[in-house]
């Protein structure tokens, strides 16, 4: 997928697969009664739209014979950073209920600053601490939002 043409072909095929998956998911919608408009109608229509658009994009790219611009994809280090950053967001989300918002925010911010900026661990630690405590006071205490407090702040 070095060029726009190949990227479009791949995107089109992926969209077509998504359309097929959506068709399969739409066919499994359970209808209990006879309705004038079945709840499957709109999902079917949208699934077909995605499928045909995907095939159309792939076919159009395959037939294209003009100037094909190159796409600048992330290098190996860039991909590594993206994967680690996404994994960190995933962990932050996964451990939110267990640790609570303040503690999860503290770990997330500290690690992200240390990893991405290669900052001194003390700077990362202090920033993480400030963000964790502020998130508790702003979102939970001041705004009263229903974020998990975690065992550390519950007592």
């Amino acid at each position, binding site marked *: 997928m070095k060029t726009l043409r190949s990227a479009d072909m791949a995107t089109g095929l992926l969209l077509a697969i998504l359309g097929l998956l959506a068709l399969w998911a739409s066919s499994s*919608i359970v*209808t209990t009664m006879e309705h004038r408009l079945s709840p499957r109608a709109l999902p079917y229509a*949208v699934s077909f739209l995605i499928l045909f*658009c995907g095939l*159309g994009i792939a076919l159009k790219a395959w037939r294209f014979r003009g100037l094909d611009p190159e796409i600048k994809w*992330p290098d190996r280090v860039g991909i590594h950073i993206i994967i680690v*950053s996404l994994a960190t967001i995933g962990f932050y989300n996964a451990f939110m209920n267990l640790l609570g918002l303040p503690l999860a925010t503290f770990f997330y911010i500290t690690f992200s600053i240390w990893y991405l900026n290669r900052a001194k661990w003390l700077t990362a630690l202090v920033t993480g601490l400030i963000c964790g405590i502020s998130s508790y006071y702003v979102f939970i205490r001041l705004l009263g939002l229903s974020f998990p407090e975690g065992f550390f702040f519950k007592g």
Partner: protein
Amino acid sequence: MGFSWDYLFQGFVTALSFQNLFWALVGSLIGTLVGVLPGIGPASGIAILLPMTTVLPPTSAIIMMAAIYYGAMYGGSTTAIVVNIPGEASSVCTAMDGYEMAKQGKAGPALAMSAISSFFAGTLSLVGLTFFAPLLADFALVFGPPEYFALMFMGLSLIISLSGRALLKGIASMAIGLMASLIGQDPLTGAARLTFGTSILTAGVDFISVIVGLFAISEVMINVEQRISTISRIQYRQLDADLGRYQAVPGANDPLHRGRFLPGAPPGVRSFGHYLRGL
């Protein structure tokens, strides 16, 4: 009850008292702060800050709540311009051009234009509401499902027209958005659509989660990959100097003063409509 100038002047006298102006200022400040947070829109902002208004007299409380609403509506555009995170559906268009301006060191004019256009739109719509409310109420009563369908169809067509020559990609992206909105309970029959038997998806996919994922996460990933901090790229030092010089941006005046009346349309459709008209 017919229209009476006396009631209007009486309203102005009440609204322009020092106490009520003070609570309007407080409300707009808090509303702007709340609106900056993605996911907390004007309605939820009012719901969260409702206890603060219970200690005030009824008129001041209503004025403060209205100020919170307007502040929150405007606050969403700040994060849209500065960090490409639209807090509201109506701020998506602001993020498209505002963030690009911010990257060129024009965050100041973008924020100023956003503030001034918010003021104009809010004031014009309020004047319109004051004088044409009975007419609009009659019109709202005849606004049925076919009209809503036409309006939604127009909104979707506008989004596709944003894609320009890449029509298929535009239709595909619209269809993916529609598919995401189909997840959850069918409003007519109550059947669970595309939930794969999980209860989490029964309530549907939250709109704010989708736009934060599309705009914020992708922007963060681009920045971490390039190891560039977005904040440092935007030249904040120019902010003070540029604020108020919005006219430096060519062609800013026409869209800014243009009317924003589109009855019945949600804010997203309205802003996209006017954005596309300006292209």
